[in-house]
């Protein structure tokens, strides 16, 4: 995903002289091509994220299109006030990219985990929040974000993510994509957990339950049309995210659901991380499993919920 990000930016930078890339002392080799092709438009801002975000705002206020890149906690929680005031209050077009989001850097410990970013960025006025499932969605997210007039946050993984096969190539901010059709239950996924969600759907299919899988690459604004359709059609709807069960995509959908006049058919189930810091060491795979973010666990829980709903 990181490589696709660098590649896409290099291409886009050649066509758009307003595009500048700000990095917080990471990705040196990664951006060599960008630097080559877009001379004078790469800024290593050092390990000083508050300043980096302010600099990006100053650039955006002066007609440039800055893209700010570093590891997720440092481009979100570390400089949250600069995002709120400099980017969102001024409503300037800055694209903030958090790499290694969720539990991607599980082995680095909780300082490098990011299971709160969707929650804290979603609440900011003017902010668009996206979590692409794979490098195809990532490239689409960046291109769409560059057409926005306000700030956009994009959380991405690290490397080696699977590409999700899709029939729908029509990408719009705030419009979810149906990745798999199904009539019994619906799984709403976001970000790089999508292969796990699809695997869970396969397991459910083997047990005779057909699951629709929906990619919510945009967390804000929510695709309310799709949600209305999904929650009035399916008895069991699950939201799967590599993020705290508080305040992320599930939180957003639950808020939306509670505000609806019509009673929805769907029971909403959340898969996400617990409200805690993970103190033991482990890989991303280990960490996901610890919080039940495995195809097996998701399929089992959905199976049980579907069985009890159809009784």
């Amino acid at each position, binding site marked *: 995903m990181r490589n696709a990000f660098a590649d896409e930016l290099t291409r886009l930078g050649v066509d758009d002289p307003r595009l500048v890339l700000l990095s917080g002392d990471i990705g040196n080799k990664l951006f060599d091509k960008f630097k080559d092709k877009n001379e004078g438009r790469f800024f290593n801002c050092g390990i000083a994220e508050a300043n980096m975000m302010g600099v990006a705002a100053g650039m955006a206020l002066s*007609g440039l299109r800055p893209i700010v890149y570093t590891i997720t906690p440092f481009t979100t929680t570390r400089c949250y006030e600069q995002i709120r005031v400099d980017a969102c209050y001024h409503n300037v077009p800055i694209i903030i990219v958090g790499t290694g989001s969720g539990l991607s850097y599980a082995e680095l410990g909780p300082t490098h985990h990011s299971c709160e970013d969707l929650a804290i960025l979603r609440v900011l006025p003017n902010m668009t929040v996206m979590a692409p499932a794979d490098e195809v969605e990532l490239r689409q997210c960046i291109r769409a974000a560059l057409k926005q007039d306000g700030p956009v946050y994009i959380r991405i993984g690290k490397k080696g993510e699977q590409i999700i096969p899709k029939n729908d190539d029509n990408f719009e901010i705030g419009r979810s994509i149906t990745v798999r059709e199904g009539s019994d239950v619906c799984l709403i996924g976001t970000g790089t957990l999508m292969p796990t969600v699809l695997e869970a759907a396969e397991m459910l299919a083997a047990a005779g339950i057909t699951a629709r899988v929906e990619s919510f690459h945009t967390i804000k604004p929510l695709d309310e049309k799709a949600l209305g359709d999904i929650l009035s059609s399916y008895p069991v709807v699950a939201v799967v995210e590599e993020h705290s069960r508080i305040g992320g995509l599930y939180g957003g959908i639950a808020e939306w659901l509670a505000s609806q006049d019509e009673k929805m058919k769907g029971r909403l189930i959340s898969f996400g991380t617990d409200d805690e810091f993970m103190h033991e060491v482990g890989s991303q795979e280990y960490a996901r499993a610890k919080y039940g973010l495995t195809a097996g666990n998701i399929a089992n829980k959905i199976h049980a919920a579907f069985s009890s709903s159809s009784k």
Partner: protein
Amino acid sequence: MELEELQGIAREIRGRIIANSHKTKTPHLGSCLSCVDIMVAVYFHSLRIDPAKPKDPGRDRFILSKGHGAPTLFQILARKGFYPEAALESYGQDGGIFAEHPPTPDHLPGIEAATGSLGHGLPIALGMALAGRAQNRNYQVVALLGDGECNEGSIWEAAMMAAAQRVDNLTVFIDFNKWQATGRSEEVLALNPLVDKWRAFGWDACEIDGHDMGQLVEVLSRKKNSKGKPVAVVAHTVKGKGVSFMEDDNNWHYRIPSAEELALAHKELGVGA
């Protein structure tokens, strides 16, 4: 513009700020008075700006990083003609736009950044300076910082990056009035030696009397040095400058002048009520 004329504008602006504070119960009077001369020199001697074209891409930019100096900025922008002086009658009124800190550029012409949370203005100014270079535009960026504001780590992050990037279209004034909200800035976070700090951070730094219009004009008129360094001007100022009973008395960080005090202040300044 002659020095006498600049000094006259500064007196007039001071009179208006004090009147506004009295009328609208706006605090930070001491902080607003200490930076009047710097801002008058910057706006009326140096900046290449056209109130008819507030978004001109080639304009010079001024960032009031110490956003609580907004009452001074509002008076100056009105005097420059960005909006009618009568518009300031709505200062502090419900539903108005003139708050205790500057609004965003989209909401008031002449404003370059909405400041108020300290430590934000310098990074934004640096971004503007770098954007000028990236776009081959020949504009200058001036930022005004408070000495208390230099407590913020982001100021020093920006200072390091400006030096690393060899930015030479950025000038910072530090309104060194020796006070912050609760005490002497030297005592709260050991600010001194301030000019040495900027120098050590790679800036072309100097010290001046921030109320001496001649020195201010001189420092703003210097040929831009070719050393590829940003410029820091540590301007020694007096909080509450211009009114004897307010000078260097930190009570005026929050105190509001009475009708009698306003009249007395206007008399001292030699400006009309």
